[in-house]
């Protein structure tokens, strides 16, 4: 049986039969890996806490006939703080779900791996009830994820006709611009008459949105973006993400549902 090593992040696990678990990992070397951890549900399992969600691990995997089998796992880093706050857990699960639904087996991306690591590390560091900071981290994650996947929205020129947006000396544009999720960016004065579902992005949000794709996580976290603007950005990016990646993210809806019943 061939074996291979993989530096991985644990994204999902579920029970298989009496005491085994199927673990889904994002690995640096092989993209998504689904493998069995035999006996992992037993309290005395050699895996015990090693395969917990969001752990960063070094593992050795044997290729099996049907499913690969994890033969060894060592912890590199543990984010114990994630389960100490339900909002943190929810945001981390959004990140997991997005990764599992967009990445594939045998198609590794070092950039995606690093992004996940940085996002989880920052979520873990947050104080409990730091919901705005957590939302900022999610905004950062979505923007960077889109960038890595090649889906950065078009801001400086019109997404339909290509005309330079900021060259137009009209008052509404100095206040911000119109954005189309469907066309994937800003829409000029001429084109906006024919497009439905446009979002108006005010000047403050526009500046943050444009800078987001190249910003560092520290700058996003320390920026004084208001809660309202963070929510606004999150909403734009979420819709843009879902539309262009063409996936459904259940844990996004969950976050809103939980927030609505005001238990945070």
């Amino acid at each position, binding site marked *: 049986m061939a074996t291979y090593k993989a530096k991985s992040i644990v994204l999902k696990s579920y029970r298989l039969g*009496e005491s085994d678990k199927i673990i889904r990992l994002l690995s640096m070397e092989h993209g998504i890996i689904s493998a069995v951890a035999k006996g992992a549900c037993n309290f005395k399992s050699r895996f015990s806490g090693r395969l917990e969600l969001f752990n960063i691990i070094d593992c050795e995997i044997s290729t099996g006939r049907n499913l690969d089998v994890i033969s060894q796992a060592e912890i590199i880093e543990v984010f114990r703080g*994630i389960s100490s706050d339900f909002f943190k857990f929810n945001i981390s699960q959004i990140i997991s779900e997005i990764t599992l639904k967009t990445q594939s087996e045998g198609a590794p991306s070092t950039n995606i791996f690093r992004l996940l690591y940085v996002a989880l590390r920052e979520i873990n560091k947050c104080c409990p009830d730091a919901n705005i900071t957590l939302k900022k981290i999610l905004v950062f994650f979505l923007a960077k994820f889109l960038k890595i996947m090649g889906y950065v929205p078009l801001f400086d020129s019109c997404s339909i006709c290509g005309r330079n947006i900021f060259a137009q000396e009209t008052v509404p544009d100095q206040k911000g611009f119109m954005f189309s999720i469907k066309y994937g960016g800003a829409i000029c004065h001429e084109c906006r008459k024919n497009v439905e579902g446009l979002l108006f992005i005010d000047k403050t949000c526009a500046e943050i949105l444009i800078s987001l794709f190249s910003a560092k996580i520290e700058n996003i976290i320390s920026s004084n973006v208001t809660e309202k603007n963070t929510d606004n950005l999150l909403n734009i990016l979420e819709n843009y993400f879902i539309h262009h990646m063409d996936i459904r993210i*259940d844990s996004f*809806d*969950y976050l809103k549902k939980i927030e609505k019943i005001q238990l945070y």
Partner: protein
Amino acid sequence: MTAQIKSIENLINEFRKLPGIGPKSARRIVFYLLKQSEKDISEFADALVDMKLKVKFCKNCYNLSEEDECLVCKDGSRSIDIICIVEKASDVLVIEGAGEYKGLYHVLGGLLSPIENIGPDELKIPQLLARINKLNTAEVIIAVNPTVEGDSTATYLNKILKSSGVKVTKLASGLPVGGDIEYADQVTIGRAISGRREM
């Protein structure tokens, strides 16, 4: 070839749906059953149907029961000011087996999961809050698995229960009895240290 005998194949397929049973085991069980008397087989089949028809959830705690109230809830000797919250009914059996606990239970029916879209309303959390109010519970013990999912559900419960003034405790977690520190992972050791107790 048994492949041509439809009734046998049907039963093999039924057994394969059970947890931990692969095609070989399913085949073995079916051939074992084939050798049994008609009476034994009838009893076996009756027991299956009987179980499904009779067993329901306790109206108070959602433990398994053949009546409206489960054996724990009906037992007058149990302390009613303490509730142990578990994920599933089979956990009640395990805790009862230890013989250490004398209070009531509340079976959630799962853990909160954003990724599986299981929220508080999908679990018996509203019913738990109503029960705590009604019984004027003094303490709840959260006895869910010491995993990230279990801990997150516990964190959530703690947050919503704290405001009701009830004392919230959680099962201790750390080194397994009979284990060896040398082989413990960082997560287990970390928990054992943060959950240490005075001797």
